[in-house]
């Protein structure tokens, strides 16, 4: 049971939630598209046509797959352009895109294409950079299998306990998948906390930039905000 789109909340006092929060998890199956690019112009061209789940995969899967690394490597496009093609300036531009500012994958896709094409206009020599065979950019898409977990929370205390225990895949689902793939206006935790009567905590959690933390660091930051609220 996922939280409904939150209605406008005016209550600021803690209250018992109507619907307990059910933590879900999302397991990712990687699906190949058979599409590949060895140079930037082809990358941009293919980027225009691949499914949204492909854009999502290459800008998000690394967060899940390298969640233990500090600092985290950059998204797949930035990593390939910087490390394989050796176009570090463009790699840096793509790595520094604030993905949190994009509320839909279509806009993010357009921005990626624009940045690459703008760079190619200003740096014509970059057109001649080729990845060698086997090091091309391979387009992959994510198939997400979403399942409920055994963890639920009806109060903020229970929420803190569960948040501490759920897998990083569950955290990833509620923070990244919910807004960008499922079209919710913010992360699932904030939506539910608003309903529970903690609008300030909901705002604080929504204000964390999840792209600049590892998943475990994100979990600790959220937990410490929740615990501060509990101790007030």
């Amino acid at each position, binding site marked *: 049971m996922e939280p409904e789109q939150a209605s406008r909340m005016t209550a600021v006092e803690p209250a018992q939630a109507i619907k307990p929060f059910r933590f879900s998890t999302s397991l990712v199956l990687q699906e190949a*598209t058979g599409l590949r690019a060895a140079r930037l112009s082809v990358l941009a061209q293919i980027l225009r046509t691949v499914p949204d789940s492909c854009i999502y995969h290459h800008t998000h899967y690394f967060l899940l797959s*390298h969640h233990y690394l500090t600092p985290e490597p950059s998204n797949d496009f930035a990593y390939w352009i910087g490390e394989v093609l050796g176009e570090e300036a463009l790699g840096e531009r793509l790595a520094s895109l604030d993905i949190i500012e994009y509320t839909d994958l279509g806009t993010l896709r357009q921005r990626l294409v624009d940045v690459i094409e703008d760079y190619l206009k200003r740096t014509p020599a970059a057109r001649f950079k080729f990845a060698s065979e*086997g090091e091309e950019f391979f387009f992959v898409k994510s198939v997400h299998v979403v399942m409920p977990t055994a963890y639920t929370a009806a109060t903020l205390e229970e929420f803190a306990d569960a948040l501490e225990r759920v897998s990083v895949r569950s955290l990833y689902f509620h923070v990244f998948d919910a807004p960008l793939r499922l079209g919710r206006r913010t992360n699932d935790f904030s939506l539910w906390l608003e309903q529970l009567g903690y609008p300030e905590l909901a705002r604080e959690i929504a204000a964390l930039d999840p792209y600049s933390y590892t998943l475990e660091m994100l979990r600790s930051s959220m937990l410490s905000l929740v615990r501060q609220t509990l101790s007030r």
Partner: protein
Amino acid sequence: MSLLADYEALVGSSTIAELRALAGRLAGKQVLMISSTRAGGGVAEILNRMAPLFQELGLDVRWDVMEGGLSFFKVTKKFHNALHGQRAAIRQEMFELFLQVGRANMHKMALDREIIFVHDPQPITLVEARGRHPASRWIWRCHIDLSRPKQRVWEFLRPFILKFDAAVYSHPAFVQQMPMRQVLVAPSIDPLSDKNRELPMEEIRAVLARLEIPQDLPIVTQVSRFDRLKDPIGVIEAYRKVRRTVKCRLVLAGGPATDDPEGEAVLSEVREAAGNDPLIRLLMLPPNSDVEINALQRASAVVVQKSLREGFGLTVSEALWKARPVVASAVGGIPLQVKHRYSGLLVHSVEGAAFAIKQLLNNPSYAKHLGENGKEHVRGHFLLTRHLADYLLTFISLDYTTDTIVLN
């Protein structure tokens, strides 16, 4: 006794809980695995380890082996080489024999399970019998490198592949554009096998003493058979460049490539290149030297995999699982296992390899950091439990065409 419980300490309880929850959706599902051999080779090894885990997870998994005589397997070996892009003399009667053996097996096998999971090209023509039980879903699992197949064999197999509901590959480079779901499932290592399990320090020391490898200097190791594609001579050249400024030992460990007519020639070239350098040790290990390889990898300061081509290169995951810093070529599946400068160093030349080995030997704390990151990467992506989860997800995905599958 729970086998899965043994993995829990290594991958975490939430991962095992998710695996069980996923399998719960497939409880009692009848799956038939079909391969061409029950012993020997990577496919048989992985199925032997997986089958009891699938059973514990509640799936009704059976594993059948197709029958084929020596002449059939000679043909499939030639097909295998051609699919790998090597030149192979293929004659028309080979295709005919291939079809004939497929048909003979089709008559003997029931092929009535809910999921028929066919491994590699040998049993691929069995899919012709799918009309017998229309409700069965068919999956083709390709374990080989199809990035540069010889067209004649590829075009022969293609119509059969197209009859499957899904195909599974180890690496995106092996995938051609096809209409069915094409899933990526990397191979895996078993952390509880003799090759990968924890070893006490005394056991490591004892193995090294038995192999006559002193531990007085940092050890640089490459484990792989003596095959030109593994570039053992390149490793020796890189080591010599390192030795100009850093003292270390080099160990090249592997078995002879018995099915490779060039095996002996390569070995004598390697012996010649090693000369009488007392710090180079060439080890010809017999099959089943898993504990020796484990100890050797654990005792190494740097593990190298300087291949010129690789199918997947799982020796890299074996080394990373032991938190060893790795220097490896960016070929085959190696870039999936190593993120350059995060979980190891990727190289493209002898010079690059020498430079990377020196960096790691001279900066033990950086080397340690890379090794630890590498271990975490393997924990998440290249252990048997992830492999199982991917297969379960593949089975579930057969009933959907969407990119998001919500199981309530």
